[in-house]
């Protein structure tokens, strides 16, 4: 057994190398897209970068022009910008008067808390749901599937508002706004987790049922193994494969959902600063956020691909 784990680690490392190229490509793409976006905004470039007309005085203007190469040809600007971006230097946010990186880092903490709680909750709900209902009676499945569809089609903010109204305003079980402690995390996490759980449930259940209808499931039954053991020991792994194709959608849902949920519940986090950045046209911050989100996306996708490799031994062969 130990030989095969060592082997596996070896294969993973060898596999990861070409994918670093993908990370770089995506980062380059992200930087370029945002550069193009900024250049498309009509108006004085210095005002755009500083967040408004006449916000900065002559001296700071000169600094900005020199720093971003605004008096240089487009090609040079692009090169400078790329260099800065890949070094992690996005400049200063003019709203917060702090380096963009630290603004984002500070805001990321509560968002991460929210996202992790929501994902955990969603996974528990989805796994329990799928295990209990896969291959079950049509009536129950119809009801649950209808419920899931409703959750998927309902805007996240609607769920948030309902929860807020019911449990905060009317019943006073949870605080209305705030970032501290478990109590203020509960409602937003639940609101965010419900659509995620709906999507995960559907995929898990479909994946589970697909697995349970395969010939190997029949073989397992002929061994005298119970249905529960069949689902947990065999089915879940196959269903997990189906889920990993959804990573992109899930991540997009988490980010978008976070923004909306944080808004409704008045939590600070990436959602808030993104909205403010866009409203006030704080471009350095917007650029930083876009790059960060692209990086997160790509890294998580790679991690999931690696997990795929671990779960499904058939894929390892092709790499050998």
């Amino acid at each position, binding site marked *: 057994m130990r030989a*095969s784990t060592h082997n596996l680690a070896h294969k993973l490392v060898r596999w990861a190398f070409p994918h670093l190229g993908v990370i770089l490509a995506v980062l380059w793409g992200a930087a370029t897209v945002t550069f193009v976006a900024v250049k498309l905004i009509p108006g004085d470039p210095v005002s755009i970068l500083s967040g408004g007309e006449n916000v900065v005085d002559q001296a700071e203007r000169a600094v900005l022009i020199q720093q971003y190469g605004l008096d240089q040809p487009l090609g040079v600007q692009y090169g400078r910008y790329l260099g800065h971006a890949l070094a992690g230097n996005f400049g200063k946010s003019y709203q917060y008067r702090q380096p963009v990186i630290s603004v984002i880092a500070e805001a990321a903490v509560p968002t991460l808390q929210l996202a992790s709680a929501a994902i955990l909750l969603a996974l528990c709900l989805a796994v329990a749901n799928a295990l209990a209902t896969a291959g079950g009676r049509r009536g129950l499945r119809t009801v649950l599937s209808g419920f899931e569809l409703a959750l998927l089609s309902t805007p996240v903010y609607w769920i948030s508002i309902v929860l807020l109204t019911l449990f905060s305003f009317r019943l006073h079980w949870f605080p209305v706004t705030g970032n501290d402690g478990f109590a203020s995390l509960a409602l937003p996490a639940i609101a965010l987790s419900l659509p995620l759980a709906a999507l995960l449930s559907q995929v898990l259940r479909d994946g589970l049922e697909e697995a349970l209808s395969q010939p190997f499931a*029949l073989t397992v039954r*002929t061994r005298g193994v119970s249905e529960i053991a069949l689902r947990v020991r065999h089915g879940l792994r196959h269903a997990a494969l189906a889920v990993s194709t959804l990573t992109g959608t899930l991540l997009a849902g988490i980010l978008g959902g976070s923004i909306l949920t944080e808004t409704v519940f008045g939590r600070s986090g990436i959602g808030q600063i993104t909205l403010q950045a866009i409203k006030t046209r704080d471009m350095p911050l917007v650029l930083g956020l876009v790059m960060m989100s692209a990086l997160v996306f790509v890294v998580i996708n790679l991690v999931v691909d690696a997990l795929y490799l671990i779960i499904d031994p058939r894929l390892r062969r092709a790499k050998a």
Partner: protein
Amino acid sequence: MTVPIAETSHEADPLMSPAVPLLRVEGLRVVFPTSQGRIEAVRGVSFAIEPGEILALVGQSGSGKSVTARALVGLAGPRAQVDASAMTIVGHDGGVVDLLRLAPSAWRAVRGREIGFVLQDAQVSLDPLRTVGREIAEPILAHRLLPKTGIAAEVKLLLARVGIPDPDIRAAQYPHELSGGLRQRALIASALAARPRLLIADEPTTALDVTVQQQVLSVFEGLARAGHGVLLITHDLAVAAQVADRIAVMQDGLIVENGPTRRVLTMPSQVYTQRLMAAVPGAATRGHWLAATGAAPARETVASDQPPLLEVDDVSVSFRRPNGSTLDALAGVSLVIRLGETLGVVGESGSGKTTLGKVALALRQPNRGEVRFEGQPWSGLSESARRPLRRRIQTIVQDPLGSFDPRYTVERIIEQPLCLRGDRDRAARRHRIAELIELVSLSPKLLARRPEALSGGQRQRVSIAQALASEPDLLVCDEPVSSLDVMTQAQVLDLLVALQVRPRLAMLFISHDLGVIQHVSHRIAVMEAGRIVETGTVAEVFDDPQRPYTRRLLGAVPRLPGRC
């Protein structure tokens, strides 16, 4: 070639007296209530299996043989209604276990422990995400037969017992890392792990090459010698002939004939059995109809001074694998097909026969060598130059559904090649379609249907009708009957043989089934690993094989008694 099997303490209990059958089934009925009414899949089946005996349950698809097998382990389906006057098995403690009306928890104690089950195609019948060792260990754990520490050793013993070498390495591997034969044997090992006395095998060798099939069948022979009872479900009479002690022939949910192998196959008392045997193609059936009645048309031998229709000249095809190495699918293959001649190409999986078919159809370019049609370049042409000639070479494949546009009805499918010829006249096309479906014996009522609604045999006929629409000279047949039942296969083969005479179609007939090749071909080419190993007329190759591979191949084919 038999595989030595370690006969250890896994032998079934020798204290059991042979007078008490291991498995006894009387009047088994299985009914499925559906929205269209009750379907009686099994209508009163009775048989018994003694320890050390192999009973083969032989029948076509739809005969109820698989349902019977699954009913014996309570897995006929949640809606199945199973009933019998008796269905019992002798348990490990010597007591008789009643298999009717068992509660789910009681069934779990029986499955795996009293009865082992082996399905076909281990590639999908073993969990591809778990190692072979864990799959084999699962029944042992489920029935709590051994402490965790003893499991590894037991798994090794089981692997050795079914003849798998290097059990240490194999147990840690995944099913896709094993060859087809080893995989199937691992599946058998997992069925034996909890030491059941009775083993039920549902088409265990259907997905395997002939030489591998023989090895797996000998595993069952070894198990029977060690005292196990085996119920072998198969559609292949020859397989039953090779290993079974007794044969029961099933048709439409009933057993129509039951008796010792030798007797059933040499002196069948039932018409159905006789027809079934007559439908098996082989050297003895050349020149006879397999399913139809009447005199078969005489087949002319094709003179060797006839001009060649298709020439494959020293063709090689290589693929690049994802990891960079090259795979030679074909290496220096040469053959000739003459007008009106059927060349049978036989080989096991990996022999390159499918690639040969694709090269003949110019769907793949050879890396070296060329293909000529009627003396003119064929593979060397540009696609636009070749296109108008394509109607002269057509193809039918193993799964015709894959070659039809999913939106088309049968009529549109057959019409496809006619539209290409620019026949503007709709009435003329309709007329031609009517001619074609009559030629392939299809009912006109099927024209408006979609191919998904047709049976396998009907789909193949549609495919043949479409292929004939452009009046080709050569038909490339790639395993056209491999997915069909013996009886359906017989009908389609009869049709193809009739087409050899009128309209004198030449054929490149690719198959892994030697009997089919023997029946249908004028000349034969044997392929192994991308090369043609031997060619000649049917008589030359089969009666006097020159090469060791050919001899091995011929030796591995199970035969019906009375046939050479």
